[in-house]
Structures are given as C-alpha cells and as structure tokens.
C-alpha cells in the first residue's frame, strides 16, 4: 500500500492519494509509515522538478496533498511526529518587495527536504532577518526578491548580518532577476534559479 500511495502522489492523483491514506490507516498501518511514503513521494517530485519533468502546478498540488494527508493523520499520532531536522533556515522576501509565490515554493521544498524553516513573510527589513537568525541559531538565510528593487535591500541584509557579528551564517539569494553579478553586488554566498538549487545549497552548507 505504501508504494501505491507514493505512486498516487507522484502521479498527481489527489483523490486516490487521500483514499489510499484512509485505507492504510483503517487497515492499521502505522501513521509514521504513511508519512514516510509521503516523504519518498516528495523526494521523487523534487528530483523531477530538478530535471524539468514536473513544474509549479505539480509542486503546489503535491503540497496540498501533503497538507490534507497530515490533517488525516494528526489525530492518530500519539505525539507529534518529530521528523529529524538537520538544519535551520530563515527565509523571507526582502524589504520593499511583496512577492511571495517563489519564496513559498522554496520554503516548502526546504521543509520537506528536512530543514526547519522560519518564514518571515514579505517586505522583511534587514533587522528582522538578523533577529530571527539570532533567535533560531540558523546557519542559513535565504533572501527572495522578484523585482530589481530587491538588489539594494538584499545587500543591506547581508551587511546587517555581518555587522551583527553573524559572520558564519551563509546567505543565499534567489528570484526572477538574480544572477552571479547580483550575488557579487549583494555579497551573498550563493544564488540559485529554482527551489531545488536552494535545497542543494542548504545541504552543502550544512554538511
């Protein structure tokens, strides 16, 4: 049944995925096994996204399926299933920019790939990134920005983190108009074109 669930999720059969989840639970399957199947499915979807075999509709729908399955499982879990997280990331769209679509996708992919994500939302001033990084002890900060206006606040945020003495924190930037030239301009440690690039970078930095 686990394999069937993985298949239903990766083939984007939403109704089947929910039906199989319920069947598994009724048959007495450990809820943690269901969660494990979800994790496997998301790993496959992440790889497909990386290779250009699935796209934003699939990521969003997979996220929706995951949310619904978690809701079904929740009452049956003895205690909150604590997935082992192997790193913390603070993420947000920088000051002045209110775009959140790409940021949400990156946060979601980091989360399902085992990171504890603190999402500060949009229009986030540099000092808010500094505070959240201090509070969480995150070693990675991810800055998002859709418009060219984001270049300056990204730079200001990198500088604020340094000025606050958070020198071993690594910063990644991403968004529609980001490239190597902007990475250099902002002083960030890395940049990426899509959500899986962010996951890869975070993995490397936490290794």
């Amino acid at each position: 049944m686990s394999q069937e669930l993985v298949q239903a999720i990766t083939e984007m059969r939403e109704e089947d995925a929910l039906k199989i989840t319920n069947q598994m639970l009724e048959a007495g399957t450990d809820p943690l096994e269901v969660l494990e199947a979800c994790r496997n499915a998301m790993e496959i979807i992440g790889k497909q996204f990386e290779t250009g075999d699935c796209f934003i509709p699939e990521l969003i729908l997979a996220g929706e399926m995951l949310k619904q399955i978690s809701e079904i499982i929740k009452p049956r879990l003895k205690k909150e299933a604590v997935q082992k997280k192997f790193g913390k990331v603070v993420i947000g769209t920088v000051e002045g920019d209110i775009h959140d679509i790409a940021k949400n996708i990156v946060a979601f992919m980091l989360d399902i790939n085992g990171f504890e994500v603190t999402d500060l939302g949009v229009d986030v001033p540099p000092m808010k990134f500094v505070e959240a990084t201090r509070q969480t002890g995150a070693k990675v900060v991810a800055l998002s920005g859709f418009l060219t206006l984001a270049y300056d606040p990204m730079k200001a945020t990198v500088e604020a983190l340094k000025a606050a003495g958070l020198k071993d924190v690594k910063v990644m930037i991403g968004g529609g108009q980001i490239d190597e030239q902007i990475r250099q301009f902002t002083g960030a440690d890395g940049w990426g074109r899509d959500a899986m690039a962010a996951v890869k970078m975070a993995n490397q930095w936490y290794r």
Partner: protein
Amino acid sequence: MSTQSDIPFVPSKEYLAREKRFYDAVALTKPDRVPVASLAAFFVTRYSGLTNAEAMSDYEKTAKAWLSSTKKLNWDMAPPPFTMFPSPVMEKLGLRTFVWPGKHLSENLPYQFVEKEYMLADEYDELLANPSDFVIRKVLPRMAESLEPLGLLPPLHWLSSGYTIIMFLASMVGVPPVKNMLQKLIEVGDEMNKFNAAQAKLIQELASAGYPLITFAFAQAPFDWISDNLRGMRGSMLDIYRQPDKLLAAIDLFTPFAIQSAIGAAKTSGITRIFIPLHRGAGGFMSNEQFEKFYWPSLRTLILELIKEGLLPMPFFEGDYTSRLPYLAELPRGKVLGHFDVVDLVKAKKMIGDIMCFWGNIPAQMLVTGNPSQIKDYVKHLIDIFGDNGGLILDGSVDGIPPESKPENVEAIMEAAVEYGTYS
C-alpha cells in the same frame, strides 16, 4: 481617451524616420540603424529627478518629466506613460489590488500587484453562467473598498422591467452606502479625467517632438487574466488539476474580450502597437503539455486576430522562454515583435530569427549594477547574433529599463546602437 486634436497631426521628418526604422526591424528588413525602443516606466521619471510617488500623483510634473527624458534619451519610440497609474484615483477607489509608493511603500519603490483569490475555487459556475453579474456583485466589492456596496445590489437581470427599475434600482440608489459609493465614484471620474487629459496632452507633445508612442493598448493572455487577476498563481495552478474543464471554459470566455478590448483601444488612440505582457506561460512554470492545453491556444488566437486587424502584437515573454520557442515559430513572419527577458540567444536566432524581430534582453542585473562598457559589449553581442537580417530592437530585459538602472548604463545602449548597429 483620444489622442486626436482639432488640428491634424503632421508627422515630422524625424518622426517618420524613427517609425520607419522601427517597422523595418519588425518586418525583418534592415533599417538604417538598430532601433532602440523601450517599455521603460519609472526609470523615465527618475531620470528627470522625480520620485516614484510623485510620478504617480502629480500628472503635470510627470508629463513634463516624460517629455524631457524622452528627448534626452532620444530613443526611436517614446515609452508608454500610462504605466504611471494615478495614485489619487487608486486612493479614492480604495483599491486593494495594488500597493504603491507614498501610501503603502516608501516613495521610490514601484507599485506592486497584490495577488489573491479574488474569485474562489468554487465560483467558476457563477462566473461562467453570468460573468457580468458575477464580476459586478462579487469580484469588484473584493477588489476595492469603494465598490463594496455593489455587493448589495440584486441580481442585475431583476432590473429588466420598468417596475423593478423603480422598486429595486431606485430604492437601492437611495440606500446610504450605495449613495456614498456613487458620490465617491463621481470624484474618481473627475480625478481620472485630469489624468487622461494630462496623458492626451503629453502624447501629442511627444508626437510633435518627433517620437511615436511605443504603445497605448495592452492585452493579456487569457490564462494570465484568470491566473493574475482572479484565481492567483496557487489557485489557477490547482485548477489545472482539479477543474481543468471549467478553467478552459473561463479561458474561452475571456479570449474574445482580450481581442476586442485591444482592438478598441487601438482604434480610439490610433496607436496600433499592442503590448501583451505574459506571466504564467514561461518555461519552468508549466510543462509543454500544459502550455499546449491551457496557455498557448488562446494566446495564439489573440495574436493572430490582432494581426488580422492590422495591429502589431508585442508579447513580452517574461521569464525563460527557451523551451517555448517551437511554439513561437508557428507565428507568421514579420508580424509579431517579441520582447524577451531570458532566452538562449543562439537557439532563439536559429528557431525564430526568421519569424519575428527580437526585442529586449539586455540584462536588468547589468543595467542596475554593471557599467557602460559591459552594456556596449552586450549590445554588440546581440547585434552579432541578430543583426544580419535587421530583426533586432534594443531594450532592457524586464521593466523595459529597470527603475534602478544607472543612467550612464542606459545611455550606453543608444551609443552602442550607433557605434555597432549602423547598417548603412
């Protein structure tokens, strides 16, 4: 709004030369020089020292700045001033679909669209059954505070008798919130008249100064209309899986509107170049199969119908369009002007170089943080690739010219066009 006046406009020699240069490039025949034409917005007003907040609120100052920047930049077409949306109008409307400088944002940020599910997932049936009624009574009250009382109106077909005009309509108009709304809307109209008058005057001045206006009308791909404006990215992407037939029906509903509104705006303004900014069809956003089913057919129809009307469709392919080039290659030769953000240049030349004139693509990153010699090298690179058949027009990759661009980088574009792009 009309750009016509009592005195017929007699184009100057310079005006005609610029227009010819532009259309030669569009038709893939070599002009005298590579044209420069830009969709720049806030860069234009900043170049003349205005803040973004001023550019949206002081129509006279903006018009002056637009004219002076256009002359100074000396591109072959004047950028479109209607992109400086009037913030006093937006304020009076209580518009929720934007945040803007001077109100929600600091004075030098651009306005930004607030994407939301203004139409909910289970409302397709209402939209499809009675689009006008649904938009008036459900969507508009969500989009603007001032329009909330529209939600109090009865279904509009109830008004289809002399009796109900008295009993329903006249009664509703007397209800305090509706009365307030109507009073507020009169103020909105008065304010918009000021904006339109300033724009009409400016367009005439630009033409008299010898600069054709790049565009006046815009159209959206039907999928984008639904995704950007009504359902949001998340909603529309889920609809692809959860209710594809209803999504397709809504796309069909909005396709004739997209075509007709663009034709109408071209007719009233006399400006035949139609800007079509594209959003959700970029490579990486959806698969080619999804593009073929949900995005391309209605966009292709829009483009072909505009061509039939003698108009020039100017789609802006935002994002990376490399994977969509085979679709663009289906379009008729020399009839479309494609503005590109990110694309594999060599592939683009190979696959559509003989189909459509290539426009844009000078990286925003370079314009904002680079230097003039980088820009000149990049322009030379573009001319080397696309120049052989004349099918090239220069502009930045996104936002035309990003507002934060360094002036010397922007000026370097025209310098490079003259230096490397003089064909004869």
